[in-house]
């Protein structure tokens, strides 16, 4: 907020020719209007935040700006000249670059090879390395050009993405949800270099985000979108989280869960982390799930889990914090019987479970909401009813024959209990939205009265309402005596519900804190791999 924004005259009123001016942008997909008469003005030397929930139209708008999507109506002016952007190459020519939310890097290649990717003509490795060096010095984005991308942390990978983008010297840079995979520390670094890009080089920067604190802390002006429309547009200085949240959601935000989802907790005040709504469980209670020295060695000798030790007691919610790619997936897979252990044991209910044997974990009472529900959570080509009995067909079958009436009754009951929006028990699973597919998984996993519930990134890709529902269900499960293991890379989510937090780094548990001794700074350090 050290760039001047003249808040008395409003955004862009007296500024020189804007870098980009979008007017009346409309894009429809069938009956859905992704962008409805959206206007956006970007100025050089300023960071412009675009805030909105999932599905608010932010991404579509940005895709239109970089030529991935053609608008149905509206005009685009770059530096005062009207233009049509048909593809990203044309956008690049106009000086528009984007750092994508999902990395588009090739792990097997080195940093400089990734940066040079997509270049035409002869490859000059030396020149590319040199250019990377220049950019590194200029923006403080230190990186080793000959490192293999697969070996880098998420933060460094993003650095590569940014260098890739800046190398073409764009005058307009779009950052799409850049912090979703970063530790708090890495995010801070990112915003530092972002600020530098703007002030020193007089570029126009767009920051697309659904996290309020990011937008508050690092932008000069903000456009808030809801259901495809611009609902508010204001200078960032002088506004606060509550105002932004209300504009973004369209109603008063009162529930703590929602605010956690919006990322308010981390900025508001740390006293917020006072109560998770679930009581801490005494350490002397016999654990429902106990993992001892679990080691999983993946392809190429990489230790996906490295001597991991973890306990989950009945009635507690253990949050597994950590930057993505530090063993979360392997931990989820282990508890889904999808990988076997090289060393170590998993014990549930006092009995050792054969890791990797089909169905062993679920038979031992370990329910799982998997990280990627399409991977092991649902069968998209089967019906909703069938997906509800995927793990356990005993309740709807007799002598190995499925009782169709019982199946239907059970499905109808689950659909009603969990408020699953679908055309009926026979609707194919693929016809449901992500949030409703997640409810099917939740309903099924809870139906068997599990002793342990593993929820891996359970709210990823869901909107505020669905997040609230999911967190509430986790709390209810814990309250009824289920041991909940919440694996999440959204720190706010963990801070919000967990009674105990363990930090995962490179496949091992590097730190543990009870809820009452939570310390954000230490947490951040642990997540970043610093010994603490």
């Amino acid at each position: 907020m050290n760039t001047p924004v003249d808040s008395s005259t409003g955004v862009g009123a007296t500024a020189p020719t804007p870098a980009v001016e979008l007017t009346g942008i409309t894009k429809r997909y069938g009956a859905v209007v992704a962008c409805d008469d959206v206007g956006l003005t970007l100025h050089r030397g300023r960071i412009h935040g675009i805030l909105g929930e999932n599905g608010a139209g932010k991404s579509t708008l940005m895709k239109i700006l970089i030529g991935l999507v053609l608008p149905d109506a509206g005009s685009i002016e770059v530096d005062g000249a009207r233009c049509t952007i048909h593809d990203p190459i044309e956008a690049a020519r106009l000086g528009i670059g984007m750092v994508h939310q999902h990395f588009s890097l090739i792990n097997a290649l080195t940093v400089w090879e990734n940066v040079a990717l997509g270049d035409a003509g002869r490859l000059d490795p030396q020149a590319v390395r040199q250019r990377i060096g220049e950019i590194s010095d200029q923006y403080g984005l230190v990186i080793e050009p000959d490192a293999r991308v697969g070996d880098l942390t998420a933060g460094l990978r993003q650095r590569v993405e940014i260098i890739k983008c800046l190398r073409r010297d764009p005058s307009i840079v779009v950052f799409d949800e850049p912090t979703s995979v970063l530790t708090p520390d890495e995010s801070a670094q990112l915003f530092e270099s972002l600020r530098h890009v703007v002030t020193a080089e007089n570029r126009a920067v767009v920051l697309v985000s659904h996290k309020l604190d990011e937008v508050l802390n690092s932008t000069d002006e903000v456009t808030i979108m809801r259901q495809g429309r611009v609902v508010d547009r204001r200078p960032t200085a002088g506004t606060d989280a509550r105002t932004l949240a209300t504009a973004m959601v369209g109603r008063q935000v009162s529930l703590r869960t929602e605010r956690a989802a919006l990322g308010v907790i981390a900025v508001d005040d740390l006293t917020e982390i006072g109560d998770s709504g679930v009581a801490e469980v005494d350490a002397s209670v016999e654990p429902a799930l106990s993992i001892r020295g679990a080691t999983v060695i993946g392809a190429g000798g990489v230790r996906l889990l490295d001597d991991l030790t973890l306990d989950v007691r009945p009635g507690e919610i253990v949050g597994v914090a950590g930057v993505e790619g530090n063993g979360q997936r392997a931990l989820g897979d282990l508890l889904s019987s999808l990988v076997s252990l090289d060393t170590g044991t998993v014990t549930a209910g006092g009995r050792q479970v054969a890791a990797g044997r089909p169905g062993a974990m679920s038979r031992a009472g370990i329910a799982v909401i998997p990280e990627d529900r399409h991977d092991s959570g649902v069968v998209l080509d089967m019906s909703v009813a069938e997906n509800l009995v995927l793990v356990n067909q005993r309740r709807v079958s007799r002598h190995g024959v499925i009782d169709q009436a019982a199946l239907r009754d059970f499905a109808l009951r689950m659909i009603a209990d969990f408020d699953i929006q679908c055309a009926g028990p026979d609707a194919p699973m693929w016809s449901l939205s992500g949030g409703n597919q997640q409810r099917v998984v939740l309903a099924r996993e809870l139906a068997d009265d599990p002793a342990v519930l593993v929820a891996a990134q359970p709210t990823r890709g869901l909107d505020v309402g669905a997040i609230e529902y999911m967190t509430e269900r986790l709390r209810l499960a814990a309250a009824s005596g289920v041991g909940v293991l919440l694996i999440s890379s959204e720190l706010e989510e963990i801070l919000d519900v967990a009674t105990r937090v363990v930090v995962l780094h490179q496949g091992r548990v590097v730190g543990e804190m009870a809820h009452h001794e939570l310390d954000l700074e230490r947490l951040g350090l642990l997540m970043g791999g610093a010994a603490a």
Partner: protein
Amino acid sequence: MTEIADSNVVAGSGQPAGGPASTAPARGARVAEWVMWYGLSVFAALVLSAVLVEATGGSWRPVLSALIDGSLRAPGRWGETLGTAAPLLLVALGTVISAKAGLVNIGQEGQLLIGAAMATYLGFVIGGPGPLNMLVVLLAGALGGALWAGIAGVLKYWRGVPEVLSTLLLVTIAGQAVAFGLRYDWLLLAPEANRGNRNQVSDQIPDGSRLPRHTLFGNEFPVTVFIAVALAVLVAWALARTVWGFRLRMLGRNPRAAQRAGVSQTKYGSAALLIGGAFAGFAGAAMLAGGGFAFGNYRLVPGFSTNIGWTGLLVALVAREKALAAIPVAFVFAALRTGSGFVGSTGVEGRITDVIQGLLVLALLIPPAVIFIRDRRRARAATTART
């Protein structure tokens, strides 16, 4: 909020093909669409065939007439067609089962041949009174087919060899193995007195051990026809209604979800492969014991399988892995086979009839492909709208 918007996409926009909200009229429209596509593409294939026949100096009317005569109209012919359809259906049913488990078994031709060989061998070694021996012959066939598919199963689950390769290559080996067996009388070759001037034939299945043949309106066919149809119903029921079928389908559609739910890939996968092979082998034994001049007349001969395995695989593909749909499809393919036997008499070159048969098969394969691609495109458009 997203959910509400999504359900609008699905329900509100008069959701196209296969939507969850497919009401009765929507289903009717879908059936009509299928009929239209099949009609259109078969018609196109017939027109193309006619052009081809005319271009090579024939005339299309007698060819079409011969096709119908050979498969249905001439005396005794539809019995012959039924008799051909039965092994096709059996092979297709096995294919459906292994395909449901997500396996690509394409070695039915070999499994069928080994099944027939095993039936011949055990049939004569064990001997025994007539009807009992018939049972031995049929079971030996199933056993042989399962054994041959089992080799692919062992390779897959023990060493990770893709079954699509192993089953295919085992076809060639099966052919060679049976040819070898037919050279030695301690294996399959008939004793010198019983083989006349032919070398490389097995003994004839004795009268009492042959499958009874049924006569209906002057058309004769083996009881295999009834067995095959009954098995089709059984397979359809087992896949749709039993826990075993449910878990098998789960394995085929999402192996990781299945693994988590306790479906062992090795156990269910190899079971599906073995059953698939058993069906093909059973078909081979039934061809042997069911008679019919086209099938070696109760004798095992080199090339005994005469492409029934391959065609059965095609039947399963065209029926889109549905056991009941395989019944009419098997009949159509059998009719093409028996019908084209008559086409030769019209003076049209033999190769042309092969081309016509190929065109008709293509015509049957195109509509599902077209509808599949279109549905996927629509689904994709709907998902893009979602994000």
